[in-house]
C-alpha cells in the first residue's frame, strides 16, 4: 500500500466511455474513467446507484449488454491485452448505433474472452441465486467452470492420481515434509505426475486437521483410481474426440466427475463444513452466505489474477457479511490475486480495501489509499458522503442536498457542481482534471488545483 507505484499493474483502464442506448434516450454511464489495479491489492470502488460502478465492472469483464456502446477508451489486461477493442472499434465510429450489430460483436468477444475469463478475470455478483443455476448441483457448477476454461487440468489430475503408486506418494510425502512445497512441485514434475501436486497441497494446507490425518489422506490418494468408464472418457478426451456426440458425453462425464473432487477441495478451502455433502446440493438448499461462498469458489477455481466482486455482501446479513469479508481478506493474504470490490457501502470498503476509488456520475471523483480517503478526503463529494453515512458514533448526519444528475444530459463542467457547496463559476464551464495531491491520491476538483 505504502509504495503503490512499485507494484506491477495488472489492469489499466484509460479514458473509458460507455453509453447505454435505450428507448428513453442515451445514458452516459461511464464518461472517461482512468483507473489502474495493482497486483495483490483490493481496490474498493464506491458510488451511489447510477454512478457507473457496476457498468465499470461489467466493462472490464467484457460482459456489457447489447445496447452498451463503447465510445472510447481501453481496458488493458497485463498491460497489453485490450479487452474491449472490438466493441470500441464499432462504438467509436461515427455511425448510427445499432444494438443488433453490437450484439454480434459482443458474442464474438465472449468467445474470444472465454479463455481470458477464468484464467485472468472472474466476477462475483450481488445476488448469488441469480448467478447459480438452480437445477444443477453446486459441485457440477464448479466442475463445469473448470471444464470450460482448463479441461486439461482435470485430465492431469485424474491421470496423475490414477498413475501414482503408494511408493510415489510416500516419497512425495517425505519431500514435502523435509523440503517444503516448492520441492514437492519439482519432484512431481520429475515423476511426470503433474496434477497431483494440487491435490496433495490442498490437503496439506488444511488448518483444521492433524498432520497424521493429512498424511493418511495424502497417502490414500492412490485408492481413488478411475473406473473403466472414466478411463475411457479421458482417453476419448485425449484423442480429441470430445466433439463426437456419444463419446463426447463420456468424456465430459469423466472430467466433471474429477471436477467434483476439485470442488470439494475448493469448498474446504473456503471453509464450508461438510464439503462432500455440499457439492451434491442444489443452490436453493444452501443459505445466502454459503451460496455466496460457492459463487466465490466458482470465481477463484481457475486461479484468476483479478476477481471483480460487485456488491458481494449487499444481500447478506451483517454477521454473514462479516464472514465473507473475512474470507476475502484471507483470500487476499493467501494469494497474490487482485480484487476489485464494488460497493455502495463505504464502511464495508474501509474494512477490505487497500485503495478506494470514489465514483460519481460516471467518473472517478477521487482515488487513493484507503486511509487517505477516509482521513483526508479532498473532493467535496467524498467529504459529504462521509458526513452522510450513519455510523454508531454520529449524532448528526449531513445529507447531500439534491440528487444525481440525469445521465442522459449530464451537466457541462463538473457533474457535482449542482450539489456542491463550494461551486465556482468555472465548475459549470469545464470538467476538472485529475490532480495528484499526494502519492497515489488523485482528485478531480478545481478546489484542489487552486490550493496547489
Amino acid at each position, binding site marked *: 500500500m505504502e509504495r503503490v507505484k512499485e507494484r506491477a499493474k495488472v489492469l489499466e483502464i484509460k479514458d473509458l466511455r460507455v453509453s447505454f442506448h*435505450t*428507448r*428513453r434516450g442515451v445514458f452516459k454511464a461511464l464518461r472517461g474513467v482512468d483507473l489502474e489495479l495493482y497486483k495483490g491489492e483490493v481496490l474498493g470502488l464506491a458510488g451511489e446507484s447510477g454512478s457507473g460502478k457496476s457498468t465499470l465492472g461489467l466493462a472490464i469483464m467484457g460482459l456489457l449488454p447489447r*445496447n452498451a456502446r463503447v465510445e472510447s477508451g481501453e481496458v488493458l489486461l497485463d498491460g497489453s491485452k485490450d479487452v474491449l477493442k472490438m466493441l470500441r472499434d464499432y462504438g467509436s465510429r461515427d455511425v448510427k448505433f445499432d444494438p443488433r450489430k453490437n450484439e454480434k460483436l459482443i458474442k464474438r468477444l465472449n468467445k474470444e474472452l472465454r479463455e481470458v475469463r477464468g484464467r485472468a478475470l472472474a466476477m462475483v455478483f450481488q445476488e448469488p441465486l441469480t448467478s447459480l443455476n438452480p437445477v444443477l448441483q453446486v459441485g457440477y457448477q464448479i466442475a463445469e467452470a473448470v471444464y470450460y476454461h482448463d479441461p486439461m487440468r482435470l485430465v492431469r489430475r485424474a491421470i496423475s492420481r490414477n498413475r501414482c503408486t503408494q511408493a510415489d506418494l510416500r516419497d512425495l510425502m517425505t519431500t514435502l515434509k523435509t523440503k517444503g512445497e516448492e520441492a514437492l512441485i519439482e519432484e512431481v514434475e520429475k515423476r511426470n505426475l503433474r496434477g497431483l501436486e494440487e491435490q496433495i497441497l490442498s490437503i496439506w494446507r488444511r488448518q483444521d486437521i492433524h498432520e497424521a490425518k493429512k498424511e493418511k489422506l495424502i497417502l490414500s490418494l492412490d485408492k481413488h483410481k478411475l473406473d473403466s468408464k472414466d478411463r475411457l472418457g479421458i482417453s476419448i478426451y485425449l484423442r480429441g474426440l470430445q466433439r463426437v456426440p456419444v463419446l463426447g458425453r463420456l468424456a465430459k462425464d469423466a472430467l466433471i466427475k474429477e471436477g467434483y473432487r476439485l470442488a470439494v477441495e475448493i469448498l474446504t478451502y473456503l471453509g464450508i463444513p461438510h464439503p462432500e455433502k455440499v457439492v451434491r446440493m442444489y443452490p436453493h438448499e444452501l443459505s445466502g452466505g454459503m451460496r455466496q461462498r460457492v459463487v466465490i469458489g466458482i470465481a477463484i477455481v481457475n486461479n484468476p489474477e483479478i476477481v471483480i466482486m460487485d456488491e458481494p455482501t449487499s444481500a447478506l446479513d451483517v454477521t454473514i457479511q462479516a464472514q465473507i469479508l473475512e474470507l476475502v481478506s484471507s483470500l487476499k493474504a493467501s494469494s497474490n490475486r487482485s480484487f476489485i470490490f464494488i460497493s455502495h457501502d463505504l464502511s464495508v470498503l474501509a474494512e477490505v480495501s487497500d485503495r478506494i476509488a470514489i465514483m460519481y456520475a460516471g467518473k472517478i471523483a477521487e482515488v487513493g489509499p484507503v486511509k487517505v480517503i477516509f482521513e483526508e478526503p479532498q473532493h467535496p463529494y467524498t467529504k459529504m458522503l462521509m458526513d452522510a453515512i450513519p455510523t454508531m458514533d454520529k449524532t448528526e448526519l449531513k445529507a447531500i*442536498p*439534491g*440528487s*444525481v*444528475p*440525469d445521465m442522459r444530459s449530464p451537466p457541462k463542467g463538473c457533474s457535482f457542481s449542482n450539489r456542491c457547496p463550494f461551486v465556482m463559476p468555472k465548475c459549470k464551464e469545464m470538467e476538472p482534471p485529475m490532480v495528484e495531491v499526494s502519492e497515489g491520491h488523485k482528485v478531480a476538483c478545481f478546489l484542489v488545483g487552486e490550493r496547489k
Partner: protein
Amino acid sequence: MEERTEEGKYSNLILSLKVFFSNRTAVAGMVIFLAYVVDALIMQFDPRLLGVTNPNQFTYNFVNPVPQPPSSQYPLGTTYPGINLLQAILEAIRVDLGYSMLIVVGGAVIGAVVGILAAYVGGYLDELLMRFTDIFFSVPYLVLAIAVGFALGRSFTSMVIALIIVWWPIYARYTRSLTLSIKESVFVEAAKAAGASMVRIMFKHILPNTLPPVVVQISLDLGSVVGVFATLAFIGFIPNANTPELGYLASLGLNYVQSAPWTVIFPGLAITLFALSVNLMGDGLRDVIDPRRRS
C-alpha cells in the same frame, strides 16, 4: 431532486407508443383492425358512404341467384341468392364485430368480478368459485353454447348470453391469478394499514392494476370469439335469415362450394384476417405493458 421531473405521464405515453410502433407486425394488425372498426362505424352511422342502403339486410338478387365469379362489377363475386359478396361482407362486419365486443367485454366484466372476489376473499369462496369455473371449463365450449342456445331459444341475444357463459371462466381464472400476485404487493398492505375497506382495496387498487393485462387478453380473444360466433351462425344458429353475418354468409354458398369456392373463401378470409389482426395487435400491446420488454 428535480431529476425525472421533466419526464411526465406524457413521456410515458410516448414511450408506450414507441414500444408499440417499433413492432411492425403489431402496427399492421392495428391498421387492419382499425379498418374493420371504421367499416363497422360507417355501417352503423352512414352506410351510404360505402354505397349500402340498408346494412341490416342482405340485398338479394333473385333474377340471377347463381354465384358469379369476381368481376369488375362484383370485385369478390356474388353468392347465392345473387348477393354482392363485397358489399355483404362490409355489412356483416358490423354485426360480427359488435356482438363479439359485447361477448368479450361481458365475459371479462363477469370474470373479473368473480376472479377478484375469489382471489381476494380466498378460502371457501375461492374454492367454490373456482370449482364452478372448472365445470364450465370441462364442457367443450361449442357444445355448451349450443346447449344454452337451445335452452334460451334461437336469437342473437341468446347467442350472446351463451357465449358470455362460455367465455367468462377464462377471465375469472386470469384475473384470479393476477389478483393473487397483486394482493401480495406492498401497496395493498399499505392500503390495509391506511384503513381501506375490502371493497375499496378490490375496486380501487386491485381492479385498476389488473386492467391492462385483461385488456390485452380481450384484444387477443376478440379474434376467437368472432370465429366461434361465425361458426355458430354457420351451423344454423341464425334466427333471422336475413341478418348480415359472416358465418351465415359463408353458409349461403355452401351448396356451390365446388363450382364457386369464393362464396365460402371470402367470408372465411374476412373472419381469419380479423382474428389475425387482433392477435398481432394484442401481442404488441402485451409488449407495451410488460416493463421487461421496454428497455
